[in-house]
């Protein structure tokens, strides 16, 4: 590629404000033909706004964008598509009530000579499109709402690629995706078709694997635009956070209290999607759960708080067998789920951060059913330091917070409710680097105090770095259990994909209890 070649996309001095907050502040960058450029930044740094500006979802206040030298001012998604800009959104833009096929061809599904949308034809077309993009495990007639999150993300990605774009925007494409190689091969193929890709991710290893160049945003400003190879991890982290993050995983000495009764012990759990699962979590222990998408992890976590029915099996809390039929019952026993879908399952978006945290224990701060704000605040402030949630956010509506701070608020709520056992389902998804460190610290602090954590993550390095033990799920059952000493991403992956041979052994689930 000639260095002097004109850029395909030129983004010049773009500003965008939402009320008092500046989302993009004089941001300029260029995208060369057939390159992958990484876009990094903490949550709230302006990445999503930049994607929305380029996709035609929001209009910039000032600044110009040019594609192939011609001005580009998309007002709606269709304008962007007409200029061959296509986007795979982080929040996924699929309509759950429609089939995969219809979603792939929105907004203008093919019509027959009577002007009608022919289900048979678009499903055949969709089958072809999916196959061309290496997807064989998704039926075109399936309703998107029935697919697990990872598969929905796959459909979203296929749709973005299928428009054969000149500029492709991938916003956190691996947030729920486990098969990253699939995405990487699609990207390699698109590059051969001279597509330029803006790749937004929190995951440094992906940026290193894919991108030659990266742009880093912080508080809406561009702080770095450089070749990736010339940057150390530390340099990237400190540019993103504005400070040096240091060691990513601080290995604490183990806090497990082996003599004590396990906080959570389950035996022979069977239900839809889970098959004979048994394990125990001791006080002070972080037990990891690993698995490719749809291997039963979601069902398992939901079953533990009574959201998914069980056919057989027993759950014991501190040695006492209990029946948990609702999250409320689980909460009374000290078992609290931090759910997968933060926005829809975890937050009350109309309320303040304070109210979101204090909700389960608001009775403690009320007299005669009237909430005493001072005592509510005292109550909330007993837990906010543990998650490093800045006090100034408490008065704000929780929807104004970044993903990381929202997650901190949810964790604070769990702590305030008196959790003994936290069930964390992918707590760092869509959370920026700084907040991740705070969440890790909170987890370590929680087990130091005698709590127990069951921790599922799509990011294997987190499991390797944080867990005392890791259960690997495959097809709804425990395919293997790895002790801390034998934890590595390779071993987890091998077990998770069903290759249980090799050097890994099936450990006795009770060996550590």
């Amino acid at each position, binding site marked *: 590629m000639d260095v002097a070649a004109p850029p395909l996309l030129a983004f010049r001095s773009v500003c965008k404000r939402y009320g008092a907050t500046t989302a993009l502040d004089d941001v300029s960058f260029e995208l060369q033909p057939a390159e992958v450029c990484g876009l990094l930044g903490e949550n709230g740094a302006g990445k999503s706004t930049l994607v929305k500006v380029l*996709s035609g*979802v929001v209009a910039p206040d000032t600044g110009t964008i040019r594609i192939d030298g011609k001005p580009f001012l998309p007002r*709606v*998604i*269709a304008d962007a*598509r007409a200029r061959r800009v296509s*986007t795979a*959104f982080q*929040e*996924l*833009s*699929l*309509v*759950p*009530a*429609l*089939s995969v096929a*219809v*979603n792939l061809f*929105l*907004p*203008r*599904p093919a*019509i027959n000579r*009577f*002007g*009608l*949308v*022919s*289900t*048979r034809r678009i*499903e055949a077309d969709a*089958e072809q499109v999916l196959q061309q993009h290496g997807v064989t495990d998704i*039926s*075109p*007639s*399936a*309703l998107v709402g*029935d697919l697990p999150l990872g598969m929905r993300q796959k459909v979203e990605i296929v749709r973005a690629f299928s428009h054969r774009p000149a500029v492709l925007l991938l916003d956190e494409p691996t947030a729920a995706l486990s098969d990253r190689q699939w995405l990487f091969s699609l990207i390699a193929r698109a590059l051969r078709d001279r597509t330029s890709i803006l790749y937004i991710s929190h995951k440094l290893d992906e940026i290193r694997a894919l991108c030659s160049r990266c742009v880093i945003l912080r508080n809406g400003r561009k702080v770095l635009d450089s070749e990736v190879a010339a940057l150390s991890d530390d340099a990237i982290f400190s540019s993103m956070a504005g400070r040096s993050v240091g060691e990513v995983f601080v290995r604490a000495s183990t806090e497990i209290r082996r003599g004590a009764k396990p906080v959570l012990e389950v035996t022979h759990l069977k239900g*839809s*999607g889970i098959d004979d699962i048994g394990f125990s979590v001791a006080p002070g222990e972080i037990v990891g759960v690993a698995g490719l998408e749809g291997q039963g992890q979601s069902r398992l976590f939901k079953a533990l708080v009574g959201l998914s029915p069980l056919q057989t099996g027993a759950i014991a809390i501190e040695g006492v067998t209990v029946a948990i039929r609702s999250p409320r019952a689980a909460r009374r026993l000290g078992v609290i789920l931090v759910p997968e879908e933060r926005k829809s399952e975890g937050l009350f978006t109309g309320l303040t951060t304070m109210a979101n945290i204090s909700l389960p224990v608001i009775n403690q701060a009320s007299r005669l059913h009237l909430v005493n704000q001072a005592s509510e605040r005292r109550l909330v402030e007993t837990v906010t330091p543990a998650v490093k949630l800045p006090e100034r956010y408490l008065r704000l509506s929780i929807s104004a917070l970044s993903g990381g701070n929202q997650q901190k608020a949810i964790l604070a709520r769990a702590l305030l409710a008196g959790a003994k056992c936290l069930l964390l389902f992918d707590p760092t998804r869509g959370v920026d680097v700084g907040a991740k460190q705070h969440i890790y610290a909170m987890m370590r602090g929680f087990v130091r105090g005698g709590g127990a954590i069951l921790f599922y993550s799509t990011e294997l390095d987190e499991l390797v770095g944080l867990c005392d033990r890791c259960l690997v799920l495959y097809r709804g059952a425990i395919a293997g259990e790895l002790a801390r000493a034998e934890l590595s991403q390779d071993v987890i992956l091998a077990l998770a994909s069903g290759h249980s041979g090799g050097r890994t052994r099936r450990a006795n689930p009770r060996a550590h209890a």
Partner: protein
Amino acid sequence: MTAASQLAQVRSVAAGGSAAAFVLLCIMTGIYAVHEPSALSAFGISNLLNNTVVLALAASGLTLVVLCGELDLSGPGVMAIGNVVVATTSTGSLGATGNLAAVLAIGAAVGGLNGFLVAYLGLQSLAVSLGSLIVCQGVALLILPAPGGEVTDTIVQAVSGDIRAIPAPALIMAVTAGLWLLLKHSRLGVALYAVGADEPSARLSGLNTRTTKLSAFVMSGIVYAIAGFVLSAEIGSGDPRVSDSFLLFMYAAVAIGGTSLGGGRGGVLGTLVGACILSVLQKMLFALGVADFYTNIFNGVIMILAIFFGQLSAWLARARHRGQG
């Protein structure tokens, strides 16, 4: 794949709840027919459809707006204006066709206004359409302050007579169903469901959510106007208050027919069935000798039952699907 797509179709019908409503209709018609043997005669059916067609049309119009995730109260208002316009002008120079055209234009205008305020100015549809309902009812009173006027015989015969031995109401409902099926399988139909199910995603998918909503309101306004026109033919005169009682029954028909009042799920076929259920219920209770004032209690109970069974079949379909997956 064809098997899978058939399964998906079966599932989507079941999930819509209209299957539950249809079964309910068959059972009720059966009970009615046992006690009143003339029920299934040509006359009985024709009579039943005559009683149903106005509600069926009005509720069908409402269904379009509900599907795209909005609410609409303006139906009875448009029907009232349609009725008094027909009653005051149909014997004049406009003629039957011109009269119909005028009524349709009024419906489209009211729907268009509602749609513009909701889709382009972002106002809440419940509040906007409540306003336009009251305005329309006022306008109807202005045109015809007291019951009266006259509907020309041409219209009365065209709408309540037989066409080639088929009762006109049956034809009207069949045409409604046919047009709905065409709409459902058009791009606009897909867009209606998409916008109703998840508006932000629909917008990010490139759909124009504003024109979709505007279209839904305009179409519904036109259908209300037709309902008003047919109503005029049935009563043969004008009455500015005659449509006042329709509103709640329109919503009942939509809900019984399995359309989610939250949008994105259901359809006009279910609504037609829902309207028939409300008519048959009255006749069935009458045939069973139940006193008149119990009818409303049963209407309400049937509505809740229909929604319950619709949801039940959706749960079952989902559980079956999960079991296979």
